[in-house]
């Protein structure tokens, strides 16, 4: 299981060496990135096959927690590492492969995203989150137009603001607890983080780590960036990176903040996100902007799901997240070949029947039409919300209203696509994007007959992710207490440690 660290290390190594190799042997540099990602994919699949499904904690550098950094490998983390390799491979910037810097940044994004999924240390999460940000700054600016620069700049400023908030939150948590290890924090949280300082720390970290998750007040970068970035970068950000941000919030909630106030705060921000996102999407006049705003709304729904206490909320949130991860990138890829404004999509179905058909399929699933997987994800959310108290019922009304809005604006697009009595617009040729989108559609359809086993599996994963005690015991096996204090100083964990040298006077 130690090899899982390779999914972080190898992409970094390849990215460092890419400019050097590119100068000597260009053909190798061109395929190096996909090869490394393929290897990571294979590795994760193999670990998946050999593992027994129980979570494992890895001590980076051989230093036992809480001193060193812990990687926590449970089913959810493994799933996300798999998805990271798979998605970056599918969304690899093939068309622009000439620029080694773009390949290097994509590799860095993949490595840091794996790190984010695996990390069990608060500050380490911050570092990988920053790396994801910085790598994505370069990727969204590659079109090098004025608009792209300004959009990236606003994205950077908002991310930087989030950085400051997250760092402040970490400082507050550290000042209360004196540790960064998530398992130890989980032990201490009920005593030390329940007060106002701890909650303020949660607010700051939520706003900071929520920037990529398009959380309500820190999401103004979304429409501009998705409108100016290359479709593949948008797809990566909207599909993958936003889900990693959700994963961080999930870990914080489950391990550190199982308190009502924290959940209420998340619920409030989620509801505001749904309302503002869906309304803006409904008003949007070009397709990319519409998709971007609707993505804000859908991520808001996931935050609402996470704010439901208990595993039902986790399950609903994860189902929504995985569905969105499949559908949204495909929609962005389809939109890449079409002219922007909705009115200009008129009659496009005749020019590209496959793309239009795919769009209809994906849109139906996004709205939540049975028997497509999107329906089941929304169903879980609705059922979870219906079993709760007053505030959640309001959120239920908002979610249902949002579904109606979603249906209205997506059908507006579909109606344009299948408009008859006009000169048919023709899409730009974009086989690769269409192929990836078709793959997503195929996966979506093939999931329909297996909904029940998939749901069971996901429920197991959610239960494991929501198991706070299990997390603590996995990281600190000795009766769930930190080893160093149990053993009173303890022996050094390092095999390489020599005899004890005396400090010089």
């Amino acid at each position, binding site marked *: 299981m130690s090899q899982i660290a390779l999914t972080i290390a190898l992409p970094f190594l390849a990215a460092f060496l890419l400019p050097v190799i590119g100068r000597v042997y260009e053909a190798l540099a061109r395929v190096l990135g996909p090869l490394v990602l393929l290897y990571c994919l294979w590795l994760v699949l193999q670990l998946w096959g050999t593992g027994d499904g129980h979570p494992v904690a890895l001590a980076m550098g051989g230093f036992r927690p809480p001193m060193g950094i812990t990687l926590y490998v449970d089913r959810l983390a493994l799933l996300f590492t798999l998805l990271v390799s798979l998605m970056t491979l599918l969304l690899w910037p093939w068309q622009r492969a000439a620029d080694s810097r773009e390949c290097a940044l994509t590799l860095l994004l993949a490595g840091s995203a794996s790190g984010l999924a695996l990390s069990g240390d608060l*500050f380490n999460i911050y*570092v990988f989150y*920053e790396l994801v*940000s*910085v790598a994505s*700054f*370069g990727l969204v*600016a590659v*079109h*090098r*137009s*004025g*608009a*792209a*620069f*300004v*959009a*990236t*700049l*606003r994205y*950077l*400023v908002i991310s*930087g*603001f989030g*950085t*400051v908030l997250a*760092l*402040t939150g*970490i*400082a*507050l948590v*550290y*000042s209360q607890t*004196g540790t*960064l290890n998530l398992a130890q924090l989980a032990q201490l949280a009920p005593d030390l983080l329940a007060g106002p300082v701890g909650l303020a720390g949660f607010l700051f970290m939520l706003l900071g780590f929520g920037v990529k998750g398009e959380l309500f007040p820190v999401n103004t970068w979304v429409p*501009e960036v998705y*409108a*100016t970035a290359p479709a593949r970068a948008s797809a990566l950000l909207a599909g993958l990176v936003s889900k990693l941000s959700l994963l961080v919030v999930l870990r914080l909630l489950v391990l550190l903040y199982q308190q009502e106030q924290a959940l209420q705060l998340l619920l409030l921000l989620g509801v505001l996100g749904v309302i503002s996102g869906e309304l803006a999407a409904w008003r949007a*006049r*070009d*397709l*990319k*902007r519409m998709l971007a705003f609707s993505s804000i709304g859908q991520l808001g729904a996931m935050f609402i799901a996470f704010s439901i206490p208990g595993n039902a909320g986790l399950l609903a949130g994860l189902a929504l997240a995985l569905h969105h991860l499949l559908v949204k990138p495909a929609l962005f890829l389809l939109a890449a070949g079409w*002219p*922007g*404004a909705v009115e*200009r999509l008129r009659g496009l179905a005749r020019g590209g029947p496959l793309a239009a058909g795919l769009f209809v399929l994906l849109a139906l699933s996004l709205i939540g039409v049975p028997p497509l997987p999107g329906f089941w994800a929304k169903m879980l959310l609705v059922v979870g919300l219906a079993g709760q108290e007053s505030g959640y019922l309001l959120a239920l009304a908002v979610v249902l209203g949002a579904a109606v809005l979603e249906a209205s604006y997506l059908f507006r697009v579909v109606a344009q696509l299948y408009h008859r009595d006009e000169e048919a617009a023709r899409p730009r040729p974009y086989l690769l994007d269409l192929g990836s989108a078709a793959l997503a559609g195929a996966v979506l359809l093939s999931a329909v007959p297996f909904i029940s086993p998939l749901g069971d599996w996901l429920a197991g994963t959610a239960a494991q992710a929501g198991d706070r005690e299990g997390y603590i015991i996995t990281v600190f096996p000795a009766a769930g207490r930190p080893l160093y204090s149990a053993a009173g100083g303890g022996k050094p964990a390092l095999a390489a440690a020599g005899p004890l040298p005396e*400090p*010089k*006077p």
Partner: protein
Amino acid sequence: MMPAGLPFLFYAGAIGLLVIGISGIVLSRNLFRIILALALAEAGANLLLVLAGWHWGGSAPILGQGKALETMVDPVPQALVLTAIVIGVGIQALALALAVRAYRAYGTLDMRRLRNRMNRDIAAAAGIPAESSRDAPAGGRPTPPVPAAHRSGGGRA
């Protein structure tokens, strides 16, 4: 014995920097100043983090200088801040490079104006008439033109 006001002074410095920085980021319209304010806020957060591990009368966490381990301050926040400072300067450099390019493209550093111009370019690229950009100032004059050599092609098709 610790002078009573001393830790408070340090905390006041950290929180003060944070507040000044955050208000600068949110309220300032000049891009260059926003980037500077970002650095200020980050410095405040760093100071707060170092303070989280500091105690009065502590010594630097370096062995072999005759200080007892118990008196040393917590080394972990210091290591974190080292990391955070370097991350901050990397992001600052990238932000400045982007600001230079945005200035070349649109000839202004005013965030609101840049945003309007960008929205107009995005709308034009999508094929929507310019009037649809809601944020455009009513009758606002576009900024003075930049020398043509510096223009790097506003909107992309």
